[in-house]
């Protein structure tokens, strides 16, 4: 699983885009320009990008409430996403979905999902389509540590295992579910262990390290593509910001998050390692940084300028109506 220069450039661009997209959102909320429930992904970028680097448009991704990173990594148009968050008709979902429901099946993105755990059975279903229709695709679910306490997690993994479905279940263990630390609600430390119940292979990856996620998820995705069934991958990671924009963060110590940011940041770690590999130069990355700024600037401008939906549209798209 060797990474080319192009892969590295692309991966960095994705991670950087996610990080800066999220930081922009904080600014926009502070400026009173954005409403809604926003759950930011910043800090966890290596997971979404490390996994999605292996995927193409045949492959399906399902995500959770913290979905911006997965959408961007899976190739959803950033401008559409930004417009969606503004509730504009040019949004990915015409403004009907908002942050927790961004989806784009043309890119294989089966949606963020506001119900914790609910995307996991949907992923099993997408894997079932891939198996029966022999698309060669795989289906990936992203979900948090907290979601592994939902019954849906358990049922969906069992079903995927028994049918050898081409699925990879990626648990992003960021140590908290909302304000509640994981050790309050989960009696084990390594959630990968839960694969035992389904006789499913599992792996633990350093979720702050793109290369580790890339490698471990690559093995799982290859296995799935070969028809050898699903895998559970636990990525140990951390969310930098609050559970939602506005979270007072009273439940964790500042030193804790500082330590993750300063010593384990995925963008910094990527840069160091990528430069060491000798395939990219610092200048390449700085250029990407600049391009990302332009992209986001354009995205915000376009979103602000775009029209709102018409009030009558409240009743369209409820049902499919054949023309």
């Amino acid at each position, binding site marked *: 699983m060797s990474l080319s220069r192009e892969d590295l450039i692309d991966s960095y661009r994705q991670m950087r885009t996610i990080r800066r997209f999220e930081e922009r959102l904080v600014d926009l909320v502070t400026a009173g320009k954005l409403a809604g429930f926003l759950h930011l992904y910043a800090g966890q970028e290596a997971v979404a990008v490390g996994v999605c680097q292996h995927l193409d448009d045949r492959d399906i991704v399902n995500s959770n409430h913290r979905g911006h990173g997965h959408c961007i990594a899976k190739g959803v148009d950033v401008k559409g996403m930004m417009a969606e968050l503004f509730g504009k008709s040019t949004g990915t979902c015409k403004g009907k979905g908002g942050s927790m*429901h961004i989806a784009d*099946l*043309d890119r294989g993105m089966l949606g963020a999902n506001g119900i914790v755990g609910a995307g996991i*059975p*949907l992923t099993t279903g997408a894997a079932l389509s891939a198996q*029966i229709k022999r*698309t060669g695709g795989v289906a990936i679910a992203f979900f948090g540590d907290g979601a592994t306490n939902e019954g849906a997690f358990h*049922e969906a993994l069992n079903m995927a295992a028994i*049918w050898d479905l081409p699925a990879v279940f990626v648990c992003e263990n960021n140590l908290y579910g909302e304000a509640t630390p994981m050790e309050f609600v989960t009696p084990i430390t390594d959630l990968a262990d839960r694969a035992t119940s389904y006789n499913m292979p599992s792996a633990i990856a350093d979720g702050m390290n793109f290369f580790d996620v890339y490698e471990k998820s690559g093995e799982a995705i290859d296995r799935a593509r070969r028809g050898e069934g699903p895998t559970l991958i636990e990525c140990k990671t951390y969310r930098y910001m609050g559970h939602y924009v506005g979270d007072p963060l009273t439940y964790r110590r500042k030193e804790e998050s500082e330590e993750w940011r300063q010593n384990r940041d995925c963008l910094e770690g990527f840069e160091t390692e990528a430069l060491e590999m000798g395939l990219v130069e610092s200048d390449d990355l700085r250029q990407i940084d600049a391009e990302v700024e332009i992209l986001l600037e354009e995205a915000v401008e376009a979103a602000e300028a775009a029209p709102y939906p018409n009030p009558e549209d409240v009743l369209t798209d409820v049902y*499919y109506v054949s023309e």
Partner: protein
Amino acid sequence: MSRKLSFAAAINEALHIAMEADPDIIVMGEDVAGGGGRADQGIEDAWGGIMGVTKGLIKAFGPERVRDTPISETAILGAAVGAAATGLRPVAELMFMDFIGVSLDPLLNQAAKLRYMFGGKVRVPLTVRTSMGAGARAAAQHSQTLYGMTSSIPGLKTVCPSNPGDAKGLLLASIRDDNPVIFCEQKTLMFMQGEVPEGDYEIPLGKAATVREGTDVSLVGVGRTVHTAVEAAIALEAEGVSAEVIDLRSLSPMDEDAILATLEKTGRLVVVDEATPRCGIASDVAALCVDRGFDFLNAPVKRVTAPHSPVPFSPVLEDAFLPSSARIIDAVRELL
């Protein structure tokens, strides 16, 4: 051409026809084969569903398309939604509608909403077949009529046939609909015989049927209560009262025009529903009458429903629970 088949056989035939015509259709649920595909038995089903409705499917279409699932309703319906959104056309079985308790989310928050939330950029061609209703001495957790709940959910459609011929045509239409449809099968009707046309035909969703013409009063029923209403109409005829009987067939969308038309004709309406009375179909029909049908009304709209209670086990109590033709006749008398 048509011949007599049981309700169960009519549904089985519809499933065969649909699966034959479209390779994207799969059937999944608990015991839909029931040990089918077991190596030492060859590909054969043991049960074909607890009512035998899915019998023979695994033999005809193989274990890839006909799947016995774990007892995991959230995974069954959730996977069916995910599969429907990505190219398959699943027919999932929820063995009893009561089990919506453990699997409402895939319907309420996923199947019903994906299209809307995604700005119209997905279709969810999912059919959920489910067995429902009282009368089988199955007690409180296996006898509920919960189609009011599913009808309340925008984005879903809900269908409830009253006879084998309709069951076949409505199921074919449901499976081919590009929206999620809940298909309710009254368990005590399953072995009822009725005329079933041969071959492939669809009965459009959202269209009621006039089962019996009449001029004095309208009886609106659904599923099993259509038969109770017909019974009442026959008895009323002997008293010189001419009752029209409407079979709603689809609960969502509901055929408002048909309800208003019969009300306009008779000026009096009784709605008969075996569900409990609160927040259900009976209230919706009555509410429609007092809104858009107000000018036609010559009398109150009566609702003959189950009482506001769980379904009791004891046969004596269960019989008292179910709407009877006697209660319909009493209601009609109050209106005349």
